[in-house]
């Protein structure tokens, strides 16, 4: 009986300890700061759980901040980003159904890596607005919702092209780790 427990535990743990994708935001623009939120959600069946950064309301990634100079935004998961990222998120809004919404701190066990919510979601989209670097002046035509496309949960396009610059969202999987990239040029 002990062995059966062990086997079942192994079955459970094998999916409990997987990791959702790693989020990278590269702002290659030298003219604009990026300000936006980041959302992750379930991709199998329903859109829930649905997790969105909520404090700060907008995460700022300054102009010319990207992997080439080590200033990119990199979120390993909802928790570790707080200590590991240059642009930490303090609180996340967690929707477990269309009618249920809760704000969780970065270190709450509900969204910890290895937990069921973290495991079942993948980075999906960002609502963003570009601002002239170092100012609070937005460029109204350079912003919007962008994300993995197609995605019935968000309806976000994967590419936004404006006369001020472009934004793109794509995934790359290497060594069994999926990276979600949001890049602004």
């Amino acid at each position, binding site marked *: 009986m002990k*062995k*059966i*427990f062990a*086997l*079942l*535990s192994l*079955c*459970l*743990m094998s999916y*409990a300890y997987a990791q959702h994708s790693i989020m990278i935001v590269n702002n290659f623009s030298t003219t604009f700061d990026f300000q936006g939120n980041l959302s992750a959600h*379930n991709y*199998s*069946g*329903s859109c*829930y*759980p649905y997790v969105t950064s909520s404090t700060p309301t907008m995460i700022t990634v300054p102009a010319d901040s990207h992997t080439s100079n080590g200033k990119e935004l990199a979120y390993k998961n909802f928790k570790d980003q707080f200590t590991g990222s240059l642009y930490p998120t303090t609180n996340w809004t967690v929707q*477990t*159904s269309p*009618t*249920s919404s*809760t704000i969780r701190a970065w270190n*709450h*066990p*509900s969204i*910890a890596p*290895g*937990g*069921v919510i973290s495991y*079942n979601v993948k980075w999906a989209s960002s609502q963003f607005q570009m601002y002239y670097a170092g100012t609070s002046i937005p460029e109204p035509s350079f912003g919007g919702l962008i994300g993995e496309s197609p995605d019935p949960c968000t309806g976000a396009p994967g590419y936004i092209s404006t006369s001020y610059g472009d934004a793109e969202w794509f995934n790359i999987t290497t060594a069994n780790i999926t990276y979600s990239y949001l890049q602004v040029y």
Partner: protein
Amino acid sequence: MSMKKILTVLGITAASFVYSQGRIIVNNYSKYDFHGFLITTNSTTGCYPRAGNSGAIVIPAECHMGNGLALVYEGYRDQFISSLYPTTNWEVTVNPLTSSIMAWDDVNLAPVSTIATTTKWYATKFDMTEPGTNISVQDFHTNLNIANPCSPGIIDYYVTPSGNNSAEMFTIGSITYLQLF
């Protein structure tokens, strides 16, 4: 362990996805013991049949998927063999006037039975206690239910007035989760 047993266990695991009752997983991340009831109701219409454990289930403090000590119920019957916290008897209500106590291996609760195939985990009633005791933790007790055809209201989140503890209930796919913090 023989290959036959491994296949049986894997078979049970696989079969659990087939039936609508689904699986329930309870993660107790809190520092208190969970004393409670896990309840099913008709998954498509009305409130019957419905079933819940007879006699409280106790899940000790800090028992969850992270350390392999979560409560996992694959169904009324199979939980008795596979769960760390087996329920021996279920209280089954088939209509407003008829309820009965059925043992875990009652044929009417088998995975292919009408009761198992027409019900789904949807509610809990619980009381949290100091570890290893029956001393209730102030304010950390409630009822929760997710969306279901029986009762219109959804109460799937609870936080104690102090904000120190909370509980959430939700589904992902065919699995219902109850988590205590």
